[in-house]
């Protein structure tokens, strides 16, 4: 058997598992015994003895406490594993040693993450024994699954006896690839109708909220028996599985997870623990750009991609050198902000003053906190959507205060103008404390876009900016691009802008040096794309991918990658090197960790190749 990842969304992945037939992952192993028949659409079967069926079969051969003779052919063979319960920590090592002797291809993990260090790496399949008991303690469960994934690289992880329509999403989001139909069978036996909202006892259901092929044949919930209820459970779970696979391919699993966890507080705990305690590991697999980010819950605020933006501000961001005055603006529903009606109005007020080059526009917003204008295209600043009610909750307030005070402390502004309304309630004190009352003005009286407010804004801007030496538009544009390049590449990004000229009209800008183009900015991507020249200018200090000795023809595949700059994430602009020679530039299709660990898959989509 062999396994290859096809798409990723954070720790979740879809893949192809080559058994006697190729099957997709994530997937459900459907149990088939004398008493219980597998789903008709099942793609893989889990059995305890040989049966006549074309589909790939996995055999569970019990434990060494009962010796059995095994006859027949199977795609995957679980040997008689010795497994002690979760609480018997002292016995796990003995069992692990025992199991290691009987097979290395499939590993049964005892579920005690302190012992994972000595686990067999590079095995195809890892079974999380005791998954069901672990699940009852969200912190232990999350810590165990993450520790397991850290230790086993790309291998498949199977969590037995878990996997219902309302929890598969978060389990896949944690990195689990395989489930089985056991909970579906047990619930059918208990008379439970499963759905993505949880479970219903058929006795308590007045109407049947489903028209799957089984439910549509029934007149009332009293007609449910074990067989048809099991069939319904199969159908609804498999639908959700397909939904999740789609979501991974479209990079929107996170939104589905946030929606599904509402069914059980336990699941909400799990997501929070994952976000708060495992940021670093999750971030290693988080793409640098996605199409959309919906902020629909408290949990959304703590998404990896949001926290990363905030952290990157603190780690890499430097304000444009020439600005003297900070202008705080509210966000807009339409993104990028510049393209909204409100910001067009703010822009006009700004352009009305002679020396607008010394004004630094920074948008105050949730969930990102602050977005400097020059970063407004960078993910997720132009991709997020959030519920706006005019009321800020305390966590959002704290987050914005934290980021704004950081900005004020690390950048020298002589004046601050706030064109915000309600936000002043929680920001005024902070701002006055940093620049002094006399250097702080509030220009918005009623609404930011009212005639009065805009007039006040224009007046105040003129008044302050005329005190300074003129900063030209083109100089300011260069500085903005430098700010963006720093944010995207870190310090080496500066080299791209030194001595360069910026041509074009925002947001479609091109960077030139001595008539040669080094790179460009596009609205859709919101990031700088490089030419080979640009790649050479950046140098080998960052965003480099070192490939083996071969002639680069098309894409770079993971197998050809020798090493990669650890900060690279899917969607990043990267430079391909062989020794000291730039061979190409393009977009990373996976994170650096995956490029180095995987043996299959496309690592870099090459845009320009050297001859």
């Amino acid at each position, binding site marked *: 058997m062999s396994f290859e990842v096809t798409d990723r969304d954070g720790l979740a992945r879809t893949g192809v598992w080559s058994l006697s037939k190729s099957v997709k992952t994530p997937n459900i192993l459907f149990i088939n015994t004398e008493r219980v028949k597998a789903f008709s659409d099942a793609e893989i079967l889990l059995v*305890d003895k040989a049966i006549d069926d074309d589909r790939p079969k996995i055999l569970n051969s019990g434990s060494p406490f009962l010796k059995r003779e095994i006859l027949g052919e199977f795609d995957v063979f679980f040997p008689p594993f010795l497994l002690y319960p979760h609480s018997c920590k002292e*016995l796990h090592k003995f069992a692990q040693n025992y199991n290691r002797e009987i097979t290395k291809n499939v590993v049964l993990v005892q579920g005690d993450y302190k012992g994972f260090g000595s686990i067999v790496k590079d095995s195809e399949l890892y079974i999380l024994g005791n998954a069901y008991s672990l699940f009852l303690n969200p912190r232990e469960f999350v810590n165990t699954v993450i520790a397991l994934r850290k230790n086993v690289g790309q291998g498949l992880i199977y969590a037995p006896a878990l996997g219902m329509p309302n929890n598969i999403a978060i389990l896949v989001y944690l990195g689990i690839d395989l489930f089985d139909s056991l909970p579906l069978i*047990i619930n059918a036996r208990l008379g439970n109708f499963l759905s993505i909202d949880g479970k219903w006892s058929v006795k308590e259901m007045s109407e049947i909220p489903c028209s799957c092929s089984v439910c549509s044949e029934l007149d009332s919930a009293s007609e449910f028996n074990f067989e048809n209820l099991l069939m319904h459970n199969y159908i609804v779970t498999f639908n959700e599985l397909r939904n999740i696979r789609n979501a991974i391919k479209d990079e929107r699993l996170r939104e589905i997870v946030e929606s599904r966890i509402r069914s059980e507080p336990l699941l909400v705990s799990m997501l929070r623990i994952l976000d708060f305690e495992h940021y670093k590991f999750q971030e290693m697999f988080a793409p640098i750009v996605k199409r959309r980010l919906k902020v629909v819950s408290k949990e959304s605020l703590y998404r990896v991609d949001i926290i990363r933006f905030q952290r990157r501000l603190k780690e890499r961001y430097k304000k444009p050198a020439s600005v003297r005055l900070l202008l705080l603006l509210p966000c807009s529903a339409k993104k990028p902000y510049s393209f909204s009606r409100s910001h067009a109005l703010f822009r006009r007020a700004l352009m009305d003053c002679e020396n607008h080059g010394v004004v630094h526009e920074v948008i105050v917003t949730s969930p990102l906190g602050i977005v400097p204008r020059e970063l407004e295209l960078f993910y997720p600043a132009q991709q997020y959507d959030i519920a706006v009610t005019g009321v800020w909750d305390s966590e959002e307030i704290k987050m914005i205060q934290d980021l704004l005070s950081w900005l004020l402390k690390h950048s020298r502004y002589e004046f601050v103008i706030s064109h915000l309304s309600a936000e002043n309630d929680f920001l005024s004190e902070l701002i006055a404390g940093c620049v002094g009352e006399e250097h702080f003005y509030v220009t918005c009286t009623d609404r930011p876009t009212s005639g009065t407010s805009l007039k006040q804004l224009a007046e105040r801007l003129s008044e302050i900016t005329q005190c300074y030496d003129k900063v030209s538009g083109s100089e300011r544009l260069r500085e903005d691009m430098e700010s963006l390049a720093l944010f995207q590449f870190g310090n080496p990004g500066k080299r791209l802008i030194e001595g360069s000229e910026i041509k074009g009209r925002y947001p479609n800008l091109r960077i030139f040096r001595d008539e040669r183009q080094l790179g460009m900015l596009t609205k859709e991507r919101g990031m700088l794309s490089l030419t080979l020249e640009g790649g050479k200018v950046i140098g080998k200090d960052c965003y480099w991918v070192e490939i083996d000795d071969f002639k680069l023809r098309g894409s770079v595949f993971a197998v050809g990658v020798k090493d990669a700059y650890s900060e690279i994430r899917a969607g990043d602009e990267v430079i391909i090197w062989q020794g000291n020679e730039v061979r190409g530039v393009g977009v990373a299709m996976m994170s650096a960790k995956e490029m180095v660990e995987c043996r299959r898959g496309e690592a870099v989509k090459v845009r320009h190749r050297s001859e």
Partner: protein
Amino acid sequence: MRELQSMINSIQRKRVCKPREYLGAWTESDVLNGKVVRALVIILRTKGCRWALKSGCSMCGYINDAVQDEVKDEDLLYQYECARKKLNRHDIVKIYTSGSFLDIEEIPERVQLEILKDLGKDVQKVIVESRPEFIVKERVEQLKYLVNELEIAIGLESADNFILRNSINKGFTFEDYIEKAELLRDLGVAVKTYILIKPPFLTEKEAIETAVNSTSKISKYSQTISFNPVNIQSNTLVEFLWKRNEYATPWLWSVVEVLQRSKSISDSRLISDPTAGGGKRGAHNCGRCDRQVLKSIREFSLTQDISVFKGLYCECKERWLDLLDLESFAFTQLPR
């Protein structure tokens, strides 16, 4: 296994100190020469099973009732005398110690002799228990001649060495048992063997299969086989697991299944008296059919007639059948 031993040790607790109080004495039914007769059970309080003092079986909490300090010969004899007062037209007397009667460290030689001499020819049959290591030719011969008929019961629990070592922590092997069973046969002493239904870490199905396998292996050595479904005793490993939902006591359906299938492959007399049967710490079904099933089990023990099980049914049997079918797939214990 070393780690299993130390886990069991760490769960054991300090013991009570009542060297002159016997643990129990009651009357029960038994069968002798095809007839149902009265049997007196006497349980003496000793310093404890030698194995439990050193290590211990994973399901046995009898050490809880042992005496912390010294138990003098006089104390033991005093206990016996008190219990003996209940002797009244009993044909069988069973002397248990929650350890090994034949262990001279537990029951000194003098006491062993005095008790059996006292019972002498008054009763038809005397049954005592012992681990294989204390069954020694000279000892047995001495005692055998003091009574009409002697039977020695051995707590083998399972004929599978892997289970004995890695689940029950019995401290001896199947081969040790065979050696002593053959010795007893040569000495003309009857053998009773205890088989444990559902040692820890086994699934319900494995419990049934291994019990039946054990039956087939020991029938030729043991005239009577007593099936003991695990009951949860204090300060045992099984209690530790049970409290954490990592061990479930067997279903009464499993006990019935073991008895039925064993009867078809064995000529030995098969008996079972589930301790705490029907209760949550013992073998149980759903609560509604327990009494009826227990009654059938008791009847079978006396009559050996499997037709008492015919027609026994309850809805909960479906859940039991599911458990047998599916438990192995879970890689963990599923709650009832």
